[in-house]
């Protein structure tokens, strides 16, 4: 059981939870995630660790309210308890001297990339941060991120699927502005990961994407999180979650994420009915 210290809405559909988890707070590294179980009937869902405070023994989680589990999380109040939090899981992101790095974050990825930005910056890298969102109203943690980056840029798209053009222009523009740029790390919705990878593939710019496949245990025990990268199968929870965006089999990735779409809808309807009857 983990006590909730804070639950706040950051932007219309994105929430920020601060949770007591002292052991995780002292071992978390950028790019890692935790498995969260909201209540005793809940699923185990992966959420990136968006920050941690060793001295207070807390971790920060930022998530988009999408399905049953995140809806349950969004409903928790300060002082409530989560059924469980396990982690930190996955391989940490590489933090070495890259020179210039571009971090592209969308939805929960703005927060998810924050610790990586901070640590890369501490290592002496120059950090360009590109925040992708529907509009300015969906950008959060801007000040916090600005403190640990050199450039903070934004790209707005009416929805996930519209106008990759802007994104492409921005990224290509950045590359000509900063020719030493040698590495991109992307976190956010699947479509963003895919789009950025396709853009950078054209100019051979190394791109690491944080995949977010369905998971069950998160410890390498079930294979639900299988992804194909450069023709080889990996378990994203232990071999990733960060992979080479130019090697991911995107078609398979998108289709595997939809494995339980109809059940997910059913579960949401069930939850909403239950909440209604409680009111």
């Amino acid at each position: 059981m983990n006590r909730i210290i804070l639950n706040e809405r950051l932007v219309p559909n994105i929430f920020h939870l601060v949770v007591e988890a002292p052991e995780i707070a002292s071992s978390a590294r950028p790019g890692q995630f935790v498995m969260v179980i909201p209540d005793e009937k809940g699923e185990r869902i992966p959420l990136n660790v968006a920050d941690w405070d060793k001295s207070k023994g807390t971790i920060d989680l930022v998530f988009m309210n999408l399905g049953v589990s995140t809806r349950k999380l969004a409903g928790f109040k300060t002082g409530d308890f989560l059924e469980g939090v396990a982690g930190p899981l996955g391989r940490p992101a590489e933090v070495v001297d890259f020179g210039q790095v571009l971090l592209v974050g969308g939805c929960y990825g703005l927060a998810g990339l924050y610790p990586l930005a901070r640590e890369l910056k501490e290592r002496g890298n120059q950090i360009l941060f590109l925040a992708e969102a529907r509009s300015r109203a969906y950008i959060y943690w801007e000040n916090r991120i600005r403190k640990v980056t050199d450039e903070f840029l934004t790209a707005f798209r009416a929805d996930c699927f519209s106008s990759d053009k802007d994104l492409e222009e921005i990224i290509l523009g950045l590359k000509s502005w900063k020719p030493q740029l040698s590495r991109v790390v992307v976190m956010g919705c699947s479509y963003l990961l895919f789009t950025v990878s396709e853009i950078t593939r054209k100019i051979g710019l190394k791109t690491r994407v944080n995949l977010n496949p369905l998971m069950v245990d998160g410890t390498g025990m079930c294979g639900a999180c299988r992804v194909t990268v450069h023709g080889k199968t990996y378990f994203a929870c232990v071999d990733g979650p960060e992979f080479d965006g130019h090697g991911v089999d995107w078609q398979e990735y998108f289709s595997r994420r939809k494995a339980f779409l109809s059940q997910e809808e059913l579960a949401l309807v069930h939850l909403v009915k239950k909440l209604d009857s409680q009111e």
Partner: protein
Amino acid sequence: MKKTELFEPGLTERLSREREKDWRKNLRREISAQKRLTIPRHKMPEQPPAQRIRNFLEVNLGYSLEMAKEEAQRCLDCGNPGCVAGCPVAIDIPTFIKYIEAGELDKALDKIRETNGLPAICGRVCPQEVQCEKNCNLVKAGKEPVAIGHLERFVADYLSLRSELNIEPGCVNSSRGKIAVVGSGPSGLTVAADLARLGYQVTVFEALHVPGGVLAYGIPEFRLPREILHSEINFIRSLGVEIKTNFIVGKTASPSDLREAGYSAFFLGTGAGLPGFMNIPGENLLGVYSANEYLTRVNLMKAFRFPDFDTPAPAARKVAVIGGGNVAMDAVRTALRLGAAEAVIYYRRSRAEMPARVEEIRHAEEEGVVFNFLTVPVRFLGDEKGRLRGMVLQRLTLGEPDASGRPRPVPVPGSEFEVEVDLAVVAIGQSPNPLLVKQVDGLKLGRWGNVEVDSETMASSLPGVYAGGDAVRGGATVILAMGDGRRAAKAIDKFLRKC
């Protein structure tokens, strides 16, 4: 008898000392051996197949007191009990059975618990037919063996509500040293219980949110109801063992963090959690699952109660399960209970080589599972949306024995054929969980990533680090894991006394 002797010196003498006690002699005299030989083995009462494939309740209903006493009378209480030699933890089987015959169930349970901390579980999942019951002397007399497993289960269940335990709860003395047990499967629970009884402070670290290892995430409720598991685990907690769930050693804290926190000995009971795949085309299609995922969704996450519980299980009409062990039987019977119209086993050897418990095979057959032997998938077929729609299979014949001593399956050229399926579960085996053991510097691993240990002490290549169960053996059995745990506990005690 040799193997058990090695495991416990003086066992033969102890057994015969018990056997020569007056109450035993009297009991033997009460009913003649001839008369005992005429009593038929009691069948386990079961839920009828048509009913049980629509629920997740336990198939076996258990003996009544009367049945158990009569079954106990079948045991001849012979002077050379083969059953004990066949038991990997050397339970004094004749003594516990005779206590049942005498109506002294408390004493029967205490006798079992002297060497086995999880009797309600072993009575349900051990492959008795190749262990204790195989060596029962009734078999030599041309009779069916005494139903030792059913009796073990009976005693444990009958007394599960007994509040007062005759075994002294561990009097934990922290000055004796702290021990970290990694993994809460049967091997870890056994080490923990044994060391707690010796007065050590033991913490069990479990990566998942529920303790029990495979008993919690793999074996379905229709074979092992979770209340049974919980009461066995509570018993172990009552000995003073602390179980920390959601704690992944190597991630949440490293072994050296734990050493710094004062843990002076380690037991790695991390199991064989890495699911095997066949590496054939189409294996990542939607609808192809590892048995671990399928069973974890249903058992650990309770997908059979979806949407009341949030985790879904895949719905399917035509289900193919690949494999012939307990895992495959559990998966295929789970599929039936989740509503599959057709549930088929594809196994690459023949019926005789199937490693599953005979009871599971029989139950599966009664429930309508179809068995296809000497067949193996070579390719999964998908539709335009990436969903599984069928598979291509190949026929095999049995050739020369391979390293495991079983005949090697050889493909029959040109024998490929296609079947329609919408769910395939791969249950071809698991290998040791690499998460922790690959991270520990200097820990010697074998070819399959298994921890190498001294088979008597379970000591690894690192001083103070012990291992056992599936982490050492690959996919084995509950009772072997427990046997490893017992040996490791003894060795850890010795090790800590020295330092």
